[in-house]
């Protein structure tokens, strides 16, 4: 191994300079794309800031009462004589969204399991496409259908629930009018949030570890045994996240609720009675004839709704992201 030393030394080429600085064009490009990507942040902060400033007068005049009281009166357009409070609407929004979640829950689980473990691949692809389309049905159509088709049926169901379970406080009513109740709205919303909640849940279920499912079968378990022992525990956080995402949607839904709910400014827990609340629908319904002062109150209500959905959605996406990252 000494041969190399005998050869005459050749000129060693000079080291090439490695440039790791980006060209001017690229730097401008990166700045530009970064600026574009900030749009979401800019829009979100502008929404929050603007609604806050427009509603500032209301927050200053009523303070916490804006959230804890539920009178909505604008006498002559002056703050002194007016009273604004969204308690009933805020609580109503939450009640309707919770009803939607409770009703949708069994269907979300069963549909996600059905699509993932019961249908062959080709039919599944078709069904998933159909469900995506369902998620795109406009809320106005859900509202129309809810008002004209579902409400006559659902108020009948509500009447029988009231008849047999009326001794439970939430199923009690003061007088027999079961139309346009939080129950009816909640049913419509349950239908609307089903596709989104289901697709998130299905996504997480589909990543359930195959080894463990095979192990469950190998131990003599049935299909349901494998699902119960492996898939459902595995997908629990994905399911919670999906349901929360759906709840975020339900809280912000306007038109479908506006068409199927009778807005009443009174805190009530009787879900079958024809009286409920929804912040989003309040804004849409009062907007047309609002005085400048009431408009400010609606902006303030908009901010409350915005922050509420932001918190719910943030929680939901954190849970979903964590569930999905754990798998990778």
């Amino acid at each position, binding site marked *: 191994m000494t041969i190399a030393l005998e050869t005459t030394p050749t000129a060693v080429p000079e080291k090439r300079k490695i440039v790791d600085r980006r060209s001017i064009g*690229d730097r401008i*490009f*990166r700045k530009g*794309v*970064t600026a*574009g*990507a900030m*749009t*979401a*942040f800019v*829009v*979100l902060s*502008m*929404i929050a800031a603007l609604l806050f400033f*427009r509603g500032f007068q209301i927050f200053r005049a009523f303070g916490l009462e804006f959230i804890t009281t539920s009178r909505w009166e604008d006498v002559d357009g002056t703050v002194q004589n007016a009273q604004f409070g969204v308690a009933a609407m805020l609580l109503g929004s939450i009640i309707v969204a919770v009803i939607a979640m409770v009703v949708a829950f*069994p269907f979300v689980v*069963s549909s996600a*399991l*059905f*699509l993932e473990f*019961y249908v062959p691949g080709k039919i599944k692809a078709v069904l998933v496409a159909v469900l995506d*389309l369902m998620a*795109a*049905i*406009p809320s*106005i*159509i*859900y509202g*129309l*259908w809810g008002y004209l*088709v579902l409400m006559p049926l659902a108020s009948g169901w509500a009447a029988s629930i009231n008849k047999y379970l009326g001794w439970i406080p939430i199923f009690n009513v003061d007088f027999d009018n079961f139309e346009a109740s939080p129950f009816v709205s909640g049913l419509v919303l349950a*239908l609307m949030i*089903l596709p989104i909640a289901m697709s998130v849940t299905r996504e997480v279920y589909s990543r359930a570890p*195959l080894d463990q499912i*095979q192990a469950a*079968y190998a131990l*003599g*378990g049935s*299909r*349901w*045994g*494998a*699902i119960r022992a492996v898939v459902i525990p595995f997908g629990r956080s994905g399911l919670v996240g999906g349901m929360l*995402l759906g709840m975020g*949607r339900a*809280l*912000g839904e*306007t038109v479908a609720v506006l*068409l199927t709910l009778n807005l009443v400014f009174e805190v009530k827990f009787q879900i079958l009675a024809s009286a409920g609340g929804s912040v*989003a629908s309040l804004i*849409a319904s009062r*907007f047309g004839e609002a005085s400048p002062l009431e408009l400010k109150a*609606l*902006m303030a209500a*908009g901010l409350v709704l*915005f922050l509420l*959905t*932001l918190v719910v*959605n943030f929680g939901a*996406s954190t849970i979903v992201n964590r569930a999905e990252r754990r798998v990778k």
Partner: protein
Amino acid sequence: MSSNDVVIPERQKPWINRTASVREMVAPVVIAAVLAGVLNLVTGLAGLLGYYLSFVICYVIVAAVFGLRHDKVKGVDKLASAAIVLGFATAFIPWVSILLTVIRRGWPTIYGGYFTTDMRVTAADDDLGMGGLSHALVGTVLMLLVASVISIPLGVLTAAYITEIRGRLAGFVRIMIQSMSGVPSIVAGLFIFATVVSRYKFSGIAGALALSILMLPTIARTAEEVLKLVPEEIRSASYALGASQMATTFRIILPAARSGLVTASMLGVARVAGETAPLILTSFYSAIFSLKMFGEPIGSLPMYTYQNFGVGTDTALTRAWGGALVLMVLILILFTTARLVGGRTKK
């Protein structure tokens, strides 16, 4: 084939049942259907829904009994399976009802002039052979076009930031997009109302801006998924040949993902085409055919439906369903196109 080749069998998904006989699947259904018919006649569960309810109860019981003939495990399995299948089927019923109702109730409004006339001389209560929704259709299309022009580039840039630039803020940007997708549509409308409408009146451009806020997150998220699918090798090859990052992105990556990006855009458009709440606050409604996007209200399909629903008489309600039908068809077309374009890439 040499003997050294080891054939690795594909991993089996054990839940795919290859031995289920048709008879085993059909028999419980038939028995339950008959039993439900009996229940339907003798008990209070009358009508179509009553029949379905009794069928659900009977099927679950019959399926469980079929399973119990083997053993308890099989019985529980059949019971759970029946519940799962019926859960899905039940969830589907309302959607079928929605589709059928929209078609059945909206169909009477459709006639030749429905797409060429507006409502300037026709009242919501006039006979169905008069007036139409050309004003609403053109308003919706115009607003969607303007909203797309704003949101598609921004959405693609956002996705490109996450997949191409891969800057420090990628996680932050993704969180912001997720939060933005949760903004209630009425809040987006309120925001545009406070910034644009309160100064420049109701206008189509205000409606388009509100829609673009709602469209952006869908496009950005779908585009991100699409750009992630572009193989890393293509990027490396482009850089190795000395291309700048700008050239790589615009001339290699985006063209490679073109059809996927079209799909992302279409899905974004389909998602907002039927938004009503923000339009109440921004573009409002006009019954007159107009191409003017500034300074005056403009019609739109959702608002046409909403407005006619508000009138409340039979003819007006039929018109509302007519608007809903046209809207559904529009969304269906957008969706199918998106699927077809997107499907072509994978092959």
